[in-house]
């Protein structure tokens, strides 16, 4: 309904937008912009900056893990009292691990990924002028930005940033005196998170409303690109799970600052018995993981959606099993709410309940496997174009398989007794949601860079970046599996104190070198990205010869996306290499009447009139060809 009405008023708004563009000041165009494309760029660039910070923090703690007994005077120069004598202090090490996790999970892979691509692609791929509420959309970015600033601000406090781990389990996080990071650093973490949740919710509500209400004519749900399906279901996950984190975090704030005992009981700190009694720290874990588990799917699903699009486009083949892809995304969405207990197998949970969570966890591997097989089947005998985006998409599939397999081990309640809190877990989630999601995000950046900035990124640097990232990530995370199987625990500051872990020191040094080298590889990306914004080769309108709607917009951005009427959609987005068609891609905006030679009866969804016309055309075509043969 809405789309039709918007359609016939387009000529007006098109003009108005042009004029509007001239009157924008720097402030309304680049800072407090309500244009979804600008907001997408803001999310992306903020996300990239946060990713660089997160990666830098990981290099700092990798230095400690790789060379625990060595002094690096340079560290003291930069970090001051946190690295006295050139060695990172244990307290600061914990902060580094905590903030690295928080930044990467929330700020880069949730806001940076969903924020960028939902904002960019939802209106462009669905044929909408902007989001349901551009104002809320702008607020969403600025809440996110505030959250980033507050989180980074905690580095400048006397006692340092939060250091209870990104999962902020109480009592460590609930007692300001527990460790130095539990003081003001933890408070800032919580405040930052409140802003972040508000930002995520505002974003997610906007995405859902836009997808359900503002699709262009002809764009029914089953004609939506898989990216949109993925972003849609991601937004639903966020809407349902982030409020639960609010509940958990607020109760934690009450425990910290008001003296309640939701989570606290039987505690003695520095010889003093604390007044809080009767609380249950397990309660926090339930609340946290009810968000925390859907959160890992919030991270991976947009990446999966991007990959579907990039792989289909660059294999020049329709995505294999479009419906199966959608149903497995829905399956993942539903199941992700009933698996959170697998993070808590060893908290004294009833073994029966553990069994239930184990079964649901193993079941969620099924839709994930369906997706993997569909990616491989799409690649199979494709006319593959190895663009950097395509390489990263294939990289995602690789990481998703190798990281996903270890998930089956960890989801097993009995094996988890051995494996929990070891490096096996670290290896698992860094591959399956860290590396895979980052690959998906980078794939999206390379693929839609021309759409965002009207210029191309350099391909050669893209290849260099890919191989550094791909090989580097495996070299970093693969050895960690073996450390974990040997029982090496995660989050420990130094392994030199324990006899059985000493033999892993050389492996740690190796991992640290791999991490440093792959981090240096990211410079290729940063240079490529920022240089290409200004000096890249100018992009054509549809550089990847893709079918989706965003490539029908002009290269020059304008407020409202399409200068004239919003195009109507006639077909699904994956008509690549359709038999009978003279070209190997048919955009969604081409009606079937223009592609008579490549229409199939299933294209008409049982419309008898259309089938009749098609049959008639085929008969005439046949007759004409026979006549030609005779001549």
């Amino acid at each position: 309904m809405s789309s039709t009405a918007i359609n016939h008023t387009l000529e007006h708004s098109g003009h108005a937008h042009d004029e509007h563009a001239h009157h924008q000041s720097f402030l309304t165009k680049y800072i407090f912009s309500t244009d979804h494309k600008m907001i997408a760029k803001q999310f992306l660039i903020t996300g990239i900056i946060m990713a660089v910070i997160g990666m830098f923090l990981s290099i700092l703690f990798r230095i400690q893990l790789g060379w625990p007994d060595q002094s690096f005077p340079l560290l003291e120069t930069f970090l001051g009292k946190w690295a006295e004598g050139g060695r990172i202090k244990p307290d600061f090490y914990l902060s580094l691990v905590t903030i690295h996790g928080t930044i990467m999970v929330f700020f880069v892979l949730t806001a940076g990924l969903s924020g960028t691509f939902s904002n960019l692609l939802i209106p462009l791929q669905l044929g909408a002028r902007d989001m349901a509420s551009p104002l809320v959309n702008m607020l969403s970015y600025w809440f996110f930005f505030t959250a980033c600033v507050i989180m980074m601000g905690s580095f400048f406090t006397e006692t340092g940033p939060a250091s209870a781990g990104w999962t902020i389990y109480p009592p460590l996080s609930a007692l300001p005196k527990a460790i130095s990071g539990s003081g003001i650093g933890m408070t800032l973490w919580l405040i930052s998170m409140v802003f972040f949740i508000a930002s995520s919710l505002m974003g997610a509500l906007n995405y859902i409303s836009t997808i359900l209400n503002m699709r262009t004519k002809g764009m029914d749900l089953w004609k939506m690109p898989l990216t949109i399906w993925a972003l849609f279901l991601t937004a639903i996950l966020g809407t349902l799970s982030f409020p639960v984190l609010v509940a958990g975090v607020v109760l934690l704030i009450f425990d910290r600052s008001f003296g309640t005992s939701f989570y606290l009981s039987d505690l003695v700190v520095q010889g003093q018995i604390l007044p809080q009694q009767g609380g249950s720290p397990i309660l926090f874990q339930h609340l946290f993981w009810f968000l925390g588990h859907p959160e890992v799917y919030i991270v991976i699903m947009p990446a999966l959606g991007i990959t579907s699009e990039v792989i289909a486009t660059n294999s020049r083949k329709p995505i294999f099993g479009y419906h199966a892809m959608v149903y497995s995304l829905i399956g993942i969405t539903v199941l992700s709410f009933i698996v959170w207990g697998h993070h808590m197998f060893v908290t004294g949970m009833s073994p029966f309940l553990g069994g239930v969570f184990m079964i649901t966890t193993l079941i969620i591997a099924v839709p994930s496997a369906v997706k993997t097989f569909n990616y491989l089947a799409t690649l199979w005998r494709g006319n593959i174009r190895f663009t950097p985006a395509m390489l990263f998409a294939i990289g995602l599939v690789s990481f998703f398989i190798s990281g996903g397999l270890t998930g089956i081990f960890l989801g097993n309640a009995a094996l988890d007794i051995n494996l929990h809190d070891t490096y096996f877990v670290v290896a698992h989630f860094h591959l399956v949601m860290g590396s895979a999601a980052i690959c998906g995000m980078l794939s999206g950046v390379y693929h839609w860079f021309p759409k965002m900035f009207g210029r191309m990124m350099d391909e050669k640097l893209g290849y260099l970046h890919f191989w550094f990232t791909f090989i580097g990530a495996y070299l970093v995370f693969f050895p960690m599996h073996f450390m974990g199987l040997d029982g090496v625990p995660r989050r420990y500051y130094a392994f030199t104190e324990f006899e059985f872990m000493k033999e892993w020191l050389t492996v740690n040094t190796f991992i640290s070198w791999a991490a440093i080298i792959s981090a240096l590889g990211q410079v290729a990306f940063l240079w490529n990205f920022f240089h290409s914004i200004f000096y890249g080769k100018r992009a054509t309108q549809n550089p990847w010869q893709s079918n989706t709607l965003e490539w029908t917009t002009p290269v020059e951005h304008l407020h409202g996306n399409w200068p004239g009427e919003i195009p109507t959609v006639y077909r699904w987005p994956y008509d690549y290499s359709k038999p009978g068609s003279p070209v190997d891609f048919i955009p969604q905006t081409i009606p079937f009447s223009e592609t008579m030679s490549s229409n199939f009866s299933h294209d008409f969804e049982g419309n008898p009139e259309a089938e009749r016309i098609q049959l008639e055309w085929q008969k005439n075509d046949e007759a004409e060809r026979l006549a030609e043969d005779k001549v």
Partner: protein
Amino acid sequence: MLYMTKIPLEQEIQSLKPKKFLMWLFIITSCMLFAALTSAYIVYTGGNPTRGIKVQLPVAFLYSSCLIIISSLTMHYAFKATKELQFAKQRLFLALTILLGFAFFASQWIAWTVLFESGAPFVNSNASESFIYVFSAFHILHIFAGIGMMVYTFIKQNKGIPQYRNMFNMELTSLFWHFLDILWIYLYVFLLLNQ
């Protein structure tokens, strides 16, 4: 702002539909928040005889329930008046609803003091009783947001914005307010059942 004036009316009216949908989605997030809090209560209390609500719920909570049900009625009348273009009546019933909203807050405040005096303070080693305050406080935050929306609608109406805008504001406000009514009834019944 230049282009806002140029967008034809019909298109602007159409753009309100997705915005109204946003309110429904927000209500879903609120539902999840309270579902989380009440589940947290159940998980926490879960069969442990030393936990659970050990005091009588204050009568003030009953008064709150009556007040908010009445306020839902007045809100409905305000909505009806808006539909029938009786703007003086709309303002009157909106003002009444706002007053009832504040009365609701007062009754909750009284309930808190009564609870505190009857030996169930917020800072409590039986956190089941702390949960009463948390439920009520989270709900009150929503009530304040609802009052804010009513005041906004009232002022905007007074300034004479177009009727379709006024109607839109009223739709959102009444939707939200009726939700808060149902939400409180849910919380109250939940507490009664767990007393």
